């Protein structure tokens, strides 16, 4: 009687442990699969929209692709479609643009958030960015080449990193900035890692995006 009870408890503990490990495996790899599938769809849609003639009434909807982001420091194949919106749902599909912040190439702050782990982990190596590293943003007409200037670790409530002039909410912007936000430290939501950059130059967009080629 006691023996079988102890055996049952043992079996339950082992089962629980295996379940937890399996869930961790899902977090690390299963979520990435989801993101990659979504990214191919987004890239195809973006391709189609960019190939079509410009419509003046075109409006960006939440969940649409905004631009392509490439960061050579993260690898040659690192390409993601940036989604409009930063809800949990949006960020599961790829890096997200904070809807009320500037668009690529505009004066102000183009702010993107992305997962550092899970869901493809687009900003996994955000901590390795150094001043001068390029962040390439492709839009329909232009490629904007931003260069990293600095980074900071802040509390999750520090909303003014997304302000047009970071840390000076309400100030009038003069620079064309980019800001990446992601979680910090890795595998945690305790703090945020913020990477700032400024527009260096812009080029005409050259080749069409490679769909689904997200690292």
């Amino acid at each position, binding site marked *: 009687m006691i023996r079988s009870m102890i*055996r*049952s408890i043992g*079996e*339950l503990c082992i*089962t629980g442990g295996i*379940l937890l490990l*399996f*869930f961790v495996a*899902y*977090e690390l790899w*299963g*979520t990435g699969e*989801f993101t990659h599938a979504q990214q191919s769809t987004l890239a195809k849609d973006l391709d189609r929209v960019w190939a079509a003639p410009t419509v003046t009434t075109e409006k960006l909807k939440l969940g649409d692709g905004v631009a392509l982001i490439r960061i050579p420091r993260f690898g040659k194949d690192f390409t993601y479609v940036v989604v409009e919106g*930063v809800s*949990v*749902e949006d*960020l*599961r599909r790829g890096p*997200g643009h*904070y809807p009320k912040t500037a668009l690529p190439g505009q004066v102000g702050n183009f702010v993107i*958030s*992305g*997962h*550092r*782990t*899970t*869901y493809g982990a687009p*900003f996994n190596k955000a901590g390795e960015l150094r001043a001068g590293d390029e962040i390439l943003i492709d839009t329909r007409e232009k490629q904007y080449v931003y260069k990293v200037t600095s980074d900071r670790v*802040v509390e*999750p*409530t*520090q*909303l003014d*990193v*997304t302000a047009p002039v970071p840390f000076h909410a309400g100030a009038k912007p003069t620079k064309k900035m980019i800001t990446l*936000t*992601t*979680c910090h430290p890795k*595998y*945690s*939501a305790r703090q*945020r890692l*913020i990477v700032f950059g400024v527009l260096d130059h812009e080029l005409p967009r050259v080749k069409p995006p490679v769909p689904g080629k997200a690292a």
Partner: protein
Amino acid sequence: MYLWIWRHLPAKSPAMKSLLALVLLALVAAALWYGLFPWLEPRIKFDHGTVNDT
């Protein structure tokens, strides 16, 4: 628990029982991976990268 399941597997030979057990395991794993985990994951959010005032 596992002994109980093993005894109730509807097969005679140990080889068939093992096969059934594997199929059962695969079914449970698939249900977790495609059913429970995708539902559970957004509710945990241990990797949250946005800044907000909430």
